[in-house]
């Protein structure tokens, strides 16, 4: 069996990693002519394949996510959810998309027409760029750049400006309020996000995502065990920028109608909606890669295609986002910013400090990983538990002002306060 496996490994028909057939195709093109005349063609073809693959994947993923999300949320809300279009409402996303496409795309008369038109298009770019570096398999990365972790943050930092474009060009007060809220939130949450990623980078010594996955494979551990605090802070701060319910202040429906995309209709609104889903999927993908082993699953990735493992993890972690969306009310903007600066930032800083100490002890003394990693895991888990519980007990809102039941009075006039 192992021999068979080794024989199949890395041949073009080894579909456990779709990078193999692509590589074979590129090698074949490179082989044309005298060996270097067609390099430019291989260059172009590689780019086209990467772009087409990401585009196709995102299209299918968004269609599936619309259905999954609507169905899951309706289960949370004791409803059936879409069940009229196709079996189990499976065609609902298609119907949604068709509806959006045939709607009139309005443009505010006093708005900035060009910027208004450009914003929904430009907001798609960061989403697509993030998917460019996600390792779907050992060789399935469209662009394996060696500063990928920083790149993800940098690309994501362009989003608030696009939100501002949308909000400002709409010439609508709700839109402008939403845009400014979105910018303020994105700036605040970027810092704990970068710091939590720094913990991962310190531990693994890699900044490229594939390297981080291979590190987890090498030491046979998921990073969430070693970095629970970083995983938590990353999840909260990254999902805060997604404009989903606990933190959707930029498009808070009950307050500012739809925030920065109030004026958008038709497919332009559809693009914002798709970007929201795409960003959520990207965050769960990054979370899966950094903290849940990416395409690696305790050796099972030998038998199951790596990209299937990755997709499975991605969708399961997306479920966490659906759960928070369906269950939590929204925070106010000042509370949300307080949360970033007063809770996430200190925790992330403590995490970086602890990780730096652990890694220094580990590397300087040359202790074997078999000793260091379990001890570090125990220390970090205990530490994160203590920190979180301690914080909520000391500064939490519910503890300070413990919810009471209403006082029950039986007589109306006797109990009148003076």
């Amino acid at each position, binding site marked *: 069996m192992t021999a068979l496996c080794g024989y199949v490994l890395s041949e073009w028909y080894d579909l456990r990693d779709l990078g193999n057939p692509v590589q074979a195709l590129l090698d074949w093109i490179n082989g044309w002519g005298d060996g270097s005349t067609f*390099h*430019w063609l291989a*260059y172009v073809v590689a780019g086209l394949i990467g772009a087409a693959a990401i585009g196709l994947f995102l299209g299918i993923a968004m269609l599936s996510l619309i259905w999954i999300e609507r169905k899951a949320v309706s289960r949370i809300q004791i409803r059936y959810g879409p069940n009229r279009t196709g079996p189990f409402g499976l065609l609902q996303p298609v119907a949604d998309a068709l509806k959006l496409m045939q709607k009139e795309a309005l443009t505010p008369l006093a708005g*900035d027409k060009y*910027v208004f038109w450009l914003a929904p298009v430009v907001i798609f770019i960061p989403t697509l760029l993030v998917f460019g570096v996600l390792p779907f398999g050992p060789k399935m990365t469209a662009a394996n*750049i*060696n*500063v990928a972790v*920083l*790149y993800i*943050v*940098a*690309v994501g*930092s*362009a989003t*608030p*400006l696009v939100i*501002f*474009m949308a909000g*400002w060009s709409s010439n609508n007060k709700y839109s402008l309020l939403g845009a*400014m809220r979105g*910018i303020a939130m994105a*700036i605040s949450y*970027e810092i704990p996000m970068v710091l939590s990623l720094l913990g991962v980078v310190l531990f693994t010594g890699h*900044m490229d995502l594939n390297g981080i996955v291979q590190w987890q494979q090498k030491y046979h551990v998921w990073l969430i065990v070693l970095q629970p605090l970083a995983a938590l802070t990353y999840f909260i701060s990254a999902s805060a920028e997604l404009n989903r319910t606990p933190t959707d202040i930029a498009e808070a429906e009950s307050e500012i109608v739809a925030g920065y995309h109030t004026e958008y209709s038709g497919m332009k609104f559809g693009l914002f909606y798709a970007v929201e889903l795409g960003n959520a999927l990207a965050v769960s993908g990054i979370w899966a890669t950094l903290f849940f082993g990416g395409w690696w699953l305790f050796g099972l990735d030998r038998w199951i295609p790596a990209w299937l493992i990755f997709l499975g993890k991605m969708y399961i972690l997306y479920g966490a986002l659906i759960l928070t969306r369906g269950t939590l009310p929204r925070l106010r903007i000042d509370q949300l910013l307080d949360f970033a600066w007063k809770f996430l930032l200190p925790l992330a800083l403590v995490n970086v400090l602890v990780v730096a100490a652990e890694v220094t002890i580990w590397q300087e003394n040359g202790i074997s990983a078999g000793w260091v990693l379990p001890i570090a895991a125990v220390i970090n888990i205990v530490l994160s538990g203590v920190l979180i519980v301690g914080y909520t007990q000391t500064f939490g809102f519910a503890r300070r002002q413990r919810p009471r039941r209403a006082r029950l009075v039986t007589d109306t006039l006797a109990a009148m306060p003076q």
Partner: protein
Amino acid sequence: MSGFGPVSAFYVLAVLSIGSALAVMAARSIIHAVLFLVLFFVSLAAMFVLLSADFVAVAQLLVYAGAIGVLVVFAILLTPSRDRRGMETKFVGPGLLAGAVVAGTVVFIAFNTNWDTASNDFPSTVDAIGQALLNRWALPFEIASVLLIAAMIGAIVVVGGRGVDLDTHAAGPATRLVRRER
């Protein structure tokens, strides 16, 4: 640097960056100018990638496109809208002349100097930058952090002040305006 990809990328990016810089000059609306400025930052970041400076490129994207762009937007929204029109002073002509002279001088020097060229292709700049920053340039690195803190505190002190005083504000011009409208 040769090959189809880098060469075509260079020309595209050169046109993009110079074009967007000119558009910052030409833009009627100051918000458009900011958007072109961000486009300029992004195209320059791509140019840095071309120079195999990937870490710097990402830092450029993060700091310039992400932070400074947003900062400029905030500054524009906090300042009056009447200053957003009629933006040129009388120095347009002399300014163009000065810019052209400086640029011409640099171009002249660039072509008339015998550069000792080499091709330093860094496989990974992150490790090298990290080593350099924490060994040889450790002191400047620390000083930069002090500078950042000083700038942060300075900005807060310059802009900050008390919050909005509701008692004085409620009777202020805004309230009166509403009353009049009624």
